[in-house]
């Protein structure tokens, strides 16, 4: 909200400069967002007499003028079509600053210049360049009797102000007006608050002029109205226009301007009706069970939802309560009689309507925060008196006040003990009262230990004891509360195994040479469809765009997107890992019924492992690079020994004992195509939740003594059908090899016509160690025979000679 420094000074004798005021407002919770000067007193702009205006030798549209500025005559190049010798004109002298904002936020400063070869010392100004109007058709021509050299500030009534734009938090409806801001400053600075004087007239519930009723009293707690007859609608006087324009409110006419003025002054939105256009001479506040079509003042035809609250005359709605009036019964040039409305509408109702209509007005802004429910009569009287002042007319003797729901002041008690315990201060009750003095809280009862206040109704936010403590805190200034010079010394708790695991996984990722990525967890439905059944996924019901409809069921999308992004930018290879949450619908839920949320880790390789280099030809990543890293990953986690792999659907499932941890795969060509990735992509994705529970069951690591006896290696090769996988054979070998088998590897894979086109040869190396003795061929041979026999039997394997 824009706050005028001049306006504040009408209520308090402010000893602070505008900048200091802005800082103080920030420190009491009304944060300055921006400050600026309004208007200019135009220093350095004087009356000049054009002595001569000659055509510029090098430019058709420019004239070279000799201008008498009183104490000197200067040459000025001017582009205005209407400049002529003999005119008295406003001249901005070299060194003066004009209220024209430049791109960098500063104002135009006049310098000596050369325009197409002709010196120009200053500028002859148009109306808009001086901030005196909007006209830019030509330069301003002044009264010919003016003396050259006279500052223009002596001719024009120039209005200047300092505007502080403050952010108002939702709990401070009282600060949405100048009086409220002034009250806060008065309280913080110990100043006296001078409120505008208003005389209240007799309140009635019925009047001969108009009948007012409220049908929905839950949504409208109060309706106050007053008649003003015989007004003259015209432009507002300058003082009123200046004050409104300074805070960015466009003047309309004297009556509307006054209603706005009082809203900015006291915080009560008001509405003026053309009385003669009110049909049936009755006003009803009500809502409808059906959709109502209504055209608002901004010429938008709206279909308002059932339940929208309207102000209606005898025939139809004339305004959306608290948001915006309608075209009908608007105050116009022809209006002579006015009915002035000041009401209290339920904040929730106004907020809902303003939101539904996407129509935030100065009125709705205040109503939805909650205005003072006891302000209406005062504000209407204040406005009526001002209207009479600027538009003439006669005020009705009484004021209609329909007030079905009355808000009583609440009382609140502040305990010294709680105050000091929460703030860490050592304040007495009297000091607390002193600090809050000026907020217009009324002391009802006071002891050494506590004080009970009656809370004014313009502070709906003060509901509980803590709210009062906040008032003490902010007015005292949190920066003044003394903090202990050092913290308490605490004994920390251990980190959870989960947190340690997450840290460890990221560390291993880096150690293995992978770069961590962060990708979106909300993806489009189309993207998600590649990763499973859409109806098993978790979706958002109200995404802003179709790009964020579905919670990722896997981390795969993210790495593919990142790979494509980088390959499109000439990256050679990618080596990424990510940890993050994935979501699915499942009865096996995590926190909320039906929703399974798991944390995954993904490793991805694609493109070149080695670029072309003098040491090597380019080498692309293979699935075995990834398998190596995944082995290393589990070794580092302490799970290397218990791991097993199972092929299914061309993918490799990774098991820890019986538990599936995740999958290693080469991304299908079709999927890569949808991401426009030409390179092979290899990914391994694991559930950290599964790893976590596997680790919980893992026994603590203990050192095993180094074998005292040498190992014994035995190599043999078999020929099998190509359909039989190496993994299957290795499983079978392990099955038969006994406990002394330490390592099993394949050191040669061969295929060729010599062994038959549907056959392959695999050469195994078995490494045996016996902890108790040196092994020799005699002990190993029977084992090998057992293995070969099993392979022959199960897979038709043939031992190679």
């Amino acid at each position, binding site marked *: 909200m824009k706050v005028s420094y001049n306006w504040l000074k009408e209520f308090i004798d402010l000893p602070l400069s505008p900048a200091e005021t802005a800082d103080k407002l920030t420190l009491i919770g009304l944060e300055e967002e921006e400050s600026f000067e309004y208007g200019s007193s135009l220093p350095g702009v004087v009356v000049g007499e054009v002595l001569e205006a000659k055509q510029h030798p090098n430019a058709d549209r420019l004239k070279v003028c000799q201008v008498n500025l009183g104490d000197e005559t200067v040459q000025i190049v001017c582009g205005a079509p209407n400049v002529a010798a003999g005119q008295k004109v406003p001249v901005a002298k070299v060194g003066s600053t004009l209220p024209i904002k430049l791109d960098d936020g500063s104002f135009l400063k006049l310098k000596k210049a050369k325009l197409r070869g002709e010196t120009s010392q200053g500028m002859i100004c148009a109306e808009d360049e001086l901030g005196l109007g909007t006209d830019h058709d030509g330069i301003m021509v002044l009264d010919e009797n003016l003396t050259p050299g006279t500052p223009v500030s002596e001719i024009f009534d120039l209005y200047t102000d300092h505007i502080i734009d403050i952010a108002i938090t939702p709990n401070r409806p009282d600060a949405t007006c100048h009086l409220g801001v002034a009250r806060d400053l008065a309280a913080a600075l110990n100043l006296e608050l001078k409120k505008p004087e208003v005389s209240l007239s007799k309140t009635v519930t019925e009047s001969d002029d108009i009948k007012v009723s409220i049908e929905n009293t839950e949504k409208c707690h109060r309706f106050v109205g007053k008649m003003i007859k015989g007004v003259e609608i015209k432009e507002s006087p300058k003082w009123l226009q200046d004050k409104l324009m300074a805070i960015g409110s466009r003047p309309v006419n004297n009556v509307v301007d006054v209603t706005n003025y009082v809203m900015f002054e006291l915080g009560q939105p008001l509405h003026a009706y053309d009385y003669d256009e009110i049909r049936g001479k009755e006003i009803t506040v009500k809502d409808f069970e059906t959709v109502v079509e209504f055209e608002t003042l901004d010429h938008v035809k709206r279909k308002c939802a059932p339940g929208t609250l309207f102000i209606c005359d005898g025939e139809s709605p004339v305004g959306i309560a608290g948001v915006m009036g309608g075209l009908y019964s608007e105050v116009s040039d022809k209006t002579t009689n006015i009915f002035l409305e000041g009401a209290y509408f339920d904040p929730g109702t106004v907020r809902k309507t303003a939101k539904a209509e996407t129509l935030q007005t100065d009125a709705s802004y205040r109503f939805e925060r909650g205005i003072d429910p006891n302000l209406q009569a005062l504000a209407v009287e204040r406005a009526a008196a001002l209207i009479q002042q600027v538009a003439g007319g006669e005020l009705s003797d009484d004021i209609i006040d329909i007030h079905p729901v009355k808000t009583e002041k609440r009382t609140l008690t502040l305990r010294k003990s709680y105050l000091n315990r929460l703030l860490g201060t050592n304040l007495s009750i009297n000091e607390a009262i002193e600090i809050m003095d000026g907020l217009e809280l009324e002391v009802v009862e006071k002891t050494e230990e506590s004080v009970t206040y009656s809370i004014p109704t313009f502070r709906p936010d003060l509901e509980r004891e803590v709210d009062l403590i906040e008032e003490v805190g902010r007015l005292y200034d949190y920066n003044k509360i003394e903090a202990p010079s050092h913290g308490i010394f605490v004994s920390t708790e251990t980190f959870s195994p989960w947190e340690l695991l997450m840290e460890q996984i990221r560390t291993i990722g880096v150690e293995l040479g992978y*770069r961590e990525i*962060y990708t979106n967890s909300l993806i489009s439905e189309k993207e998600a469809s590649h990763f499973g059944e859409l109806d098993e996924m978790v979706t958002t019901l109200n995404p*802003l765009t179709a790009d964020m409809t579905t919670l990722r069921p896997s981390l795969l999308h993210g790495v593919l997107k990142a790979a494509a992004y980088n390959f499109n930018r000439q990256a050679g290879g990618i080596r990424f890992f990510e940890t993050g949450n994935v979501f699915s619908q499942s009865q096996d839920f995590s926190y909320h019924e039906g929703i399974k949320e798991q944390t995954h880790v993904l490793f991805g390789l694609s493109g070149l492992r080695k670029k072309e280099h003098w040491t090597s030809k380019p080498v692309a990543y293979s699935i075995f690079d990834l398998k190596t890293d995944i082995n290393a990953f589990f070794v580092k986690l302490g799970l290397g020994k218990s791991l097993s792999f199972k092929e299914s659907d061309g993918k490799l499932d990774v098991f820890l004992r019986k538990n599936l941890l995740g999958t290693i795969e080469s991304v299908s060509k079709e999927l890569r195509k949808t991401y426009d990735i030409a390179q092979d992509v290899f990914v391994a994705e694991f559930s950290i939740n599964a790893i976590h529970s596997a680790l919980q069951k893992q026994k603590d690591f203990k050192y095993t003594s180094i074998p005292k006896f040498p190992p014994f290696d035995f190599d043999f090769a078999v020929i099998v059908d190509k359909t039989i996988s190496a993994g299957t054979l290795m499983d079978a070998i392990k099955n038969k090899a006994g406990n002394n088998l330490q390592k099993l590897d394949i050191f040669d894979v061969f295929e060729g016509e010599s062994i038959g086109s549907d056959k392959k040869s695999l050469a195994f190396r078995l490494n045996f160690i016996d902890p108790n003795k040196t092994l020799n061929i005699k002990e190993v041979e029977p084992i090998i025979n057992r293995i070969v026999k099993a392979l022959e039997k199960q897979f038709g394997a043939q031992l190679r000679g």
Partner: protein
Amino acid sequence: MIDQIKDLTNEIQSYAVSTKDELESFRLEFLSRNGRVQSMFKNLGSVPKEERGMVGKAMNEAKLLAQSKFDDLKSKLESSDQQVKAAIDDITLPAPEPIIGSLHPLTQTLAEMKNIFYRLGFTISDGPEVEDDFHNFTALNFPPNHPARDEQDTFFVRKSDDPNMMDLVLRTHTSPVQIRLMENTKPPIRSIMPGRVYRNEAVSPKSYFLFHQVEALYVDENVSVADLKETLITFVKLMYGSNVKYRLRPGFFPFTEPSLEMDIWWGSEKDGKWLEILGSGMVDPNVFKAAGVDPEKYTGFAWGMGVERISILKYGIDDIRTFYENDIRFLEQFN
């Protein structure tokens, strides 16, 4: 005889060798079968018996000298041979690029913050990203018609008219973890809760529909604003240096009362400005009640900050979307 041996020794020592040919001449001169050393030994027979031991010893020394000089020169000449290197033995050739792993800048910023919190005695807690209405809003003292509950700010995952079925949302802050923690832990509680949060907002250089937060919670019997201040001040000093200029001002959050915001001075004394870096406050009694903590017995403070925001400030990143594009040229800058 001894003099002859001395002369021979001197000659061996002073014999200049700088090429392989000269080395061969040296060998022929001194060490060959008919060389001078061997010839010298032939004269040993004519040495009187009583001197033979001494002379023999001197001869042996001369022989050893010649041999070791030959060996040294030989290996020296051979190694200098290698100065004519193969092209690939040029150690100025560039090495293959190293494979370097790295943590994402957001992880790095978060780690820096975590480490400070750990020094301040905070532990760490975790919770789900899909959260129910109670934990995300109601328990945090958001009134039923609070703007934050609006569809425009919150992603809904489940909305149901069934009163037994709670609405589910993507958490809009990590504060629900505070509620979960208080529900399950008897104070004192001193923990941080980092994590991913969501806002249903349009994507721009300044805003993204997901981001990361760290919140901190401290609940005990006598926690005050003064304690909060002490922690905040210590935090910004550890994060931004002991000379950091800061200020506290009132703020507003539904879940704290009073609420405070902290600004730090960013930039030079003259051209800098106040930048908001965190929001904080004393845990609202309504939040305590919702989480089953007695507000008359316990007080506490909570505060939170955005990881992206801190990272953007720290590294001068001008577009929040950069964090989620994962351009290698970006990631490589954060080794």
